[in-house]
């Protein structure tokens, strides 16, 4: 299978100007690849840089050193040098990111939030809405909640809305930050089955899955992040 994402000797530092210029070296020489139809799970204790690596791949964290090469089919994009327009284009067609938290405009109904993701990717409004309803039902969001803003929902419901949004228009590369963290066992199985379905259809997946059983269920290749941490006395 084809390499979709190549991370080469990537480092990320934060320079905290407001705190006497303290430098935090959060990722050190990370190298890894993700192929089509493969799930790579980032492992290690909190603070080891797992979420930061996902943010670097999505383009939110600017890369300090090294490179990140994304294969978009027709061409390769080097993320360290990509322009904002190129990153916007990548997010529209190539990379999807499911964060742990739902960030939406107040008052917008759940169904619209989920459908809009597909509309942005080019689906018609009717197709997108039908798919959104199906996904929300599959994820057990009660019908009477579909027309309400998800901001008043429980943590687990919000997480499922976030997943429905990602699933309504999956990209060839998907990043998942603890997608099952606040879910009950039944919903957890549903979400894991959806992610396994993406894998089967050839999606390259990079994610954080805390539970070992989840990683086994997904047949994920584990990458230990501890080795990319800054040495204690550096």
């Amino acid at each position, binding site marked *: 299978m084809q390499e979709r994402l190549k991370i080469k000797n990537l480092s990320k530092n*934060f*320079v*905290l*100007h*407001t705190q006497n210029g303290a430098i935090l070296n959060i990722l050190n020489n990370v190298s890894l690849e993700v192929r089509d139809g493969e799930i790579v799970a980032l492992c290690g204790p909190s603070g080891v840089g797992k979420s930061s690596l996902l*943010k670097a791949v999505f*383009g*939110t*964290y*600017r890369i300090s050193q090294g490179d990140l090469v994304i294969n978009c089919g027709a061409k390769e994009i080097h993320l360290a040098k990509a322009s*904002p*327009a190129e*990153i*916007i284009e990548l997010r529209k067609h190539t990379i999807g990111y499911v964060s742990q938290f739902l*960030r*939406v*405009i*107040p*008052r*917008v109904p759940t169904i619209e939030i989920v459908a*809009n993701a597909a509309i942005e990717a080019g689906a018609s409004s009717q197709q997108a809405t039908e798919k959104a309803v199906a996904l929300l039902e599959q994820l057990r969001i009660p019908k009477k909640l579909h027309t309400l803003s998800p901001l008043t929902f429980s943590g687990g419901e919000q997480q499922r809305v976030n997943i429905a949004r990602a699933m309504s228009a999956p990209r060839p590369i998907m990043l998942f930050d603890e997608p099952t963290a606040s879910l009950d066992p039944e919903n957890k199985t549903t979400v894991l089955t959806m992610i396994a379905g993406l894998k089967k259809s050839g999606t390259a997946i990079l994610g954080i899955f805390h539970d070992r059983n989840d990683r086994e269920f997904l047949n994920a290749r584990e990458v230990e992040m501890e080795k990319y941490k800054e040495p204690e006395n550096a």
Partner: protein
Amino acid sequence: MKMNPGIPLLKVENLHKAFGKTKACHDISFELWPGEVLGIVGESGSGKSTLLRLIAGLLEPDKGTISYQQNSKLITLTDLDEPALRHLQRTEWGFVHQHPSDGLRMNVSAGANIGERLMANNWRHYGNIREKAQHWLKAVEIDPARIDDLPRTFSGGMQQRLQIARNLVTNPNLVFLDEPTGGLDVSVQAKLLDLLRGLVSNLGLSAIMVTHDLAVARLLSTRLIVMKQGEIIEHGLTDQVLEDPQAAYSQLLVSSVLQV
């Protein structure tokens, strides 16, 4: 209006403006692409509103050029004569002022406020203008029965929404927003954000928004420019600037936001 997605909608190059010894805008350059919402953030007095007024042709720059896409070509605004610029401002652009009283005519009815731009666009039939005005009142969630009332009798939030309706009635390509949610209580802010988001995605309009509210910037803008003392000190995608700010001042700005 057909847009060429391959060239910017607006291009600002080396713009300068001083008031006496104060540099309000110093060597400002950036591009706005079709369909984009660009946020300009920074503390009061950083030159954000001056920049917006320069681009919108409400102030004349000391130096620099501003180009705008028309019929798939970039035209230089600084070369346009006064009537041509006015025509552009009334047809293809909108300007939403921070204080509704600066953007509305307070002594004529709500309907007339919306109708004025239509008339500038050669609408003549009274019935059609009234119908369109009612449609837009509904779109900004103002009871159409209030069409003959003066804006003065409206609440601040309603006035702000009326100002938006007045500006958008001619389907502009580019809207300038100066602190559009400033001074409104939060429930009205949410309503306005939802409204603006819908208009941007449904009408395909582009916008430049000055705001000091980073949460508003986060929800509406694609890209952000951070200004300090008349200069751009940082720019990037909204999530980059807010989650990984590079300049000392941007870091201070982001870290100073109170958590709810």
